């Protein structure tokens, strides 16, 4: 049984995202600890990339700030190794194919396994290209997490049947960022997912309010929130962890 499954066991999972190194590694670590303390079930840690084409302006900004602060893939691994001493919930990476490729996939996933990373989300690796990293990720017990989009249609079953860890359902067209309204027919997507797999599914993109978290948790097994957290980091900088902790608590409570 993989560790990611534990995040969804007998509960709806709240999955916050944070870009590592924005504005510095110490703040990232403190934020992760606050997230765990306040009910996060799984945490998505972003390894910054210079050109994050799937991100909206908010997370683009986090990537730029983190890289300007001197973060590197090696420093991200060090941060995870450090925080792992105090955190037992599943942790997954979110980054771009070139970050893994240039590090060397074998070395990258070996390090993931060493520091206690349970899965990875690569938004620029669709089903057709997943063998680029799938075998090596598998060998190191890291789940390569599949994404489903509002445009996936006839592709959903194909993707879902080979899903590992959890399924990331992209709620809306476009890039990451908060949205006032989500119009995709998520019920229909989740229905096809459930017909084809026992792997849990979580909805992300555009979710920021407790009400949205509540609505989405009734459709899917988990809720992913990124941009709303990054906005707090941008606003409060090194003071952000406690505000993010409060926010996580509020979102988690709305889902119960």
């Amino acid at each position, binding site marked *: 049984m993989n560790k990611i499954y534990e995040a969804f066991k007998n509960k709806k999972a709240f999955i916050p995202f944070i870009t590592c190194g924005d504005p510095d590694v110490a703040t990232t670590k403190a934020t992760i600890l606050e997230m765990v303390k306040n009910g996060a079930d799984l945490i998505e840690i972003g390894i910054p990339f210079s050109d994050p*084409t799937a991100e909206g302006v908010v997370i683009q900004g986090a990537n730029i700030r983190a890289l300007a602060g001197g973060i590197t893939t090696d420093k991200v691994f060090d941060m995870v190794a450090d925080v792992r001493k105090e955190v037992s919930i599943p942790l997954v990476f979110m980054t*771009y194919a070139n970050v893994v490729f240039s590090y060397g996939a074998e070395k990258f996933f070996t390090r993931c396994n060493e520091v206690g990373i349970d899965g990875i989300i690569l938004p*620029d690796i*669709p*089903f*057709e290209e997943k063998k680029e990293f799938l075998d090596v990720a598998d060998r190191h017990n890291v789940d390569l997490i599949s994404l489903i989009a509002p445009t996936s249609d006839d592709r959903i079953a194909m993707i879902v049947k080979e899903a590992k860890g959890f399924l990331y359902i992209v709620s809306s067209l476009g890039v990451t960022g908060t949205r006032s309204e989500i119009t995709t027919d998520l019920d229909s997507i989740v229905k096809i997912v459930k017909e084809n797999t026992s792997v849990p599914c979580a909805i992300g993109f555009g979710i920021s309010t407790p009400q949205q978290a509540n609505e989405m948790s009734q459709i899917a097994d988990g809720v992913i929130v990124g941009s709303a957290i990054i906005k707090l980091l941008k606003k409060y900088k090194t003071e952000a962890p406690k505000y993010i902790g409060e926010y996580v608590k509020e979102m988690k409570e709305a889902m119960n």
Partner: protein
Amino acid sequence: MKETKGRFGIHGGQYIPETLMNAVIELENAYNHYKNDPEFNKELNYLLNDYAGRPSKLYFAKKMTEDLGGAKIYLKREDLTHTGAHKINNVLGQALLAKKMGKRRLIAETGAGQHGVATATAAALMGMECVVFMGEEDTIRQALNVYKMRLLGATVIPVTSGTKTLKDAVSEAMREWTSRIDDTHYCLGSVMGPHPFPTIVRDFQAVISKEIKEQILEKEGRLPDAVVACVGGGSNAIGSFYNFIEDKEVALIGCEAAGKGIHTFETAATINTGSLGIFHGMKSYFCQDEYGQIAPVYSISAGLDYPGVGPEHAYLNDIKRASYVPVTDDEAVEAFEYLSRTEGIIPAVESAHAVAYAKKIAPSMGKDKIIVITISGRGDKDCAAIARYKGEDLYE
């Protein structure tokens, strides 16, 4: 390992968000249907000939040949096509294809503005909406082209993310496409991005080498010894090379923008200085650091100022069928002035990179040898910037 779709050796592929997968599959299916459709080809040929002014001339540059004292030099005059650059070949093909697919809106990225102007032109012609993403830095360098796009009815969106140049314009156009797919076609301007773009754009640009071959056979009764073209993403170069790939006796030479030199950080010579990576939907060579962060690149030419190169060029380099050489800003500017003075032809500063390299190799080649240089675009757009580069206080 079984290779995925759209590969050129190890390069290419479809490294894009799931949101775009059905869009590129739809595009591939439509292209495979229409590329052999007689009606589609009839319409496209009509546009290329009667609207864009093809075939473009292959001109014997007699004065340049005499001045350099070596190989005979021919210029493939893409600068004489409508909108002043080869970009129109691809755009007319893609816009017609998009129209057949029922799309009513074109989006595009542009560096120098040539592809943006071409896309805005095709959109105006075909009654489609047009939005062009252009790095803010480039909207300043190429202000005249921004005006032209607006004149043609397009909306120009200055991109302020990242380095505010071509790379960021591509990222922003990709982001826009993920948010609006139903009625929108992303008219990608070079032989890059995810499959099927590198293949589609190459096929629409291959008309350049098809014509060069016919024209040189008619004029000289034989194939050239070398075809020289500038390479950013690489669309005019692949168009110039494609029909010669099987003719092994023809040297294919791509000229990369070295900026201030390949031993400086201010360069955009991807094959000469980059390494293998995955970005903008493709596996290819990129200028990047050890952690895969894409490097800020530099060239005087906004059209070559891109940190990657099309996957088919990466492959032609790997198998040593084509060679890729660096040409600096200084060399390109010198060639810009040289061609203007010698032949009365003002080339785009992009094309001037190819002229500069041909100038270097022609004198040491025999008088019986033949070089074809593709003049991918005309240089009106560059005059003010180059005047400033030379210290003149000239603004458009």
